[in-house]
């Protein structure tokens, strides 16, 4: 039966998750050089459009339709949102449409996260085309595995992923890795400083992301109940601890606490708590956040060592943070928080850690290899990268015939 409180909560949460994509656009946009700010913004903003349309037409059905084949993909019953109505589905207290649109926001932001890895060199049209195909062949199946009816990871393997540690963060990072392999580094990578052009934009974006993440994680309870409150609290505490941890780490390691460190730290914590949000208590959340801040800071140092060009650190933050969070979910999960979840290592069930690792590895493999194939096809046909000339002049002028700022 429909519950108005739950419905209010999920609808507002959907709106908050929607706001994360513009938030992410600004977060990323502030970090690129001024000549590429609009390209960064448009890649994200356009996904709000195109990924939503594809989701309504086909993605939702593939992800959340009745299982079509061995827990791997949904059927086509909900194509064009057929049968997705105002009534709750069985066992739910919110309109089916509310659930669908909440999930749509996840299908938007996941590819949006990827754009950071290819910043300042990706060709707009080709990248958008890639994401359309990718939603159908990579994202929707992966979502089905974890959250879909009879999905093999969620229902059979019994791995836990409350709000998208694997589906959103690990998948976006492994996709990013594949595209980085295909597209290669920016001209001047590691030779020349490419400092952020406007950190206030980035901070604004981080603030909106943190805000929206409450919808992302607490909203994943799909009800306004004690579990939602718990997910809300652990989300906040993990973000807080990670902010402190990252800033403290760089302060000790490099001598200065930075604003970009604070903004990056909170995202690291939010990423890591995502899979765990509905399964762990507040003190484990502080530990998860702390470890995420440290681990992702380490991930970024590692990138600088290894030299690949993950421009805005999708792997370092979403890959490392997501993996850490998924595994720590296996460590800290307890049915005392969520009777529908499972107990983890510290509650006497080491098996859950194993299931979590399988889920992580499967997602990495699928995301990386699948994107490698799709990416190569797109790259070899229309090309995923702009010409060196255009890259040097900047994508705003060359790809979009605009300038971010005109102060003269």
């Amino acid at each position, binding site marked *: 039966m429909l519950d108005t409180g739950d419905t209010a909560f999920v609808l507002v949460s959907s709106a908050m998750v929607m706001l994360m994509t513009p938030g992410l656009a600004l977060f990323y946009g502030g970090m690129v050089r001024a000549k590429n700010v609009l390209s960064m913004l448009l890649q994200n903003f356009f996904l709000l459009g195109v990924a939503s349309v594809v989701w309504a037409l086909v993605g939702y059905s593939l992800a959340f339709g009745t299982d079509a084949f061995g827990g791997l993909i949904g059927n086509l019953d909900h194509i064009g949102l057929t049968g997705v109505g105002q009534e709750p589905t069985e066992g739910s207290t919110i309109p089916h449409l509310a659930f669908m649109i909440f999930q749509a926001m996840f299908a938007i932001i996941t590819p949006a996260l990827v754009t950071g890895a290819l910043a300042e060199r990706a060709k707009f049209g080709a990248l958008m085309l890639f994401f359309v195909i990718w939603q159908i062949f990579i994202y929707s199946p992966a979502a089905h595995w974890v959250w879909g009816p009879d999905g093999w990871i969620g229902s059979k393997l019994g791995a836990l992923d409350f709000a998208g540690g694997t589906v959103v963060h690990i998948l976006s990072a492994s996709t990013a890795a594949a595209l980085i392999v295909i597209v290669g580094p920016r001209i001047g990578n590691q030779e020349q*400083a490419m*400092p*952020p052009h406007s950190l206030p934009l980035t901070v604004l974006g981080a603030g909106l992301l943190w805000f929206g993440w409450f919808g992302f994680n607490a909203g994943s309870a799909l009800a306004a109940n004690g579990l939602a409150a718990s997910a809300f609290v652990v989300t906040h505490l993990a973000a807080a601890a990670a902010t402190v941890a990252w800033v403290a780490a*760089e302060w000790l390691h*490099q001598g*200065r606490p*930075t604003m*970009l*460190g604070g903004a*990056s730290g909170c995202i690291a914590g939010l990423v890591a708590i995502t899979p765990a949000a509905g399964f762990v208590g507040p003190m484990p959340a502080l530990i998860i956040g702390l470890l995420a801040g440290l681990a992702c*800071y380490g991930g*970024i*140092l590692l*990138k*600088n060592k290894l030299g690949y060009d993950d421009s805005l*650190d999708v792997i370092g933050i979403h890959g490392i943070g997501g993996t850490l969070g998924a595994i720590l979910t296996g460590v800290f999960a307890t049915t005392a928080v969520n009777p529908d979840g499972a107990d983890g290592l510290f509650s006497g069930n080491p098996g859950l850690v194993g299931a979590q690792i399988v889920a992580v590895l499967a997602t990495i493999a699928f995301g990386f290899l699948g994107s490698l194939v799709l990416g190569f096809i797109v790259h070899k046909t229309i090309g995923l990268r702009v010409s060196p000339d255009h890259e040097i002049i900047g994508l705003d002028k060359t790809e979009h015939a605009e300038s971010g700022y005109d102060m003269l």
Partner: protein
Amino acid sequence: MKDVTRVEAIVRPPKLDDVRNALNEAGIHGMSVTEIRGCGRQKGFTERYRGSEYTINLLHKVKVEVVVDDAQVEAVVAAIIDAAQTGEVGDGKIFLSPVSDTIRIRTGERGPDAL
């Protein structure tokens, strides 16, 4: 007509107000100011960006340009030095160079009177 000179002073941004006041006291009211970046002996700043360090060698400076009668040049130079000097590396330079003519756009006047 070679009796006007361009005095171009590159100074630290926080000294701009002092320089302007000093010039005003020396009777000079017209000037033009440009934001520039400079490098020289002064050490740059090391900035950080997600774990990578880079040095900003081009430091913010301000260029003050005054075109004045040759007769005023030494007074102007002295006023600028007085106002802008801290004694630390990075105080900046003054360059003097010839101006062959000056025109006031408003009136079309030429020569030193146009200043």
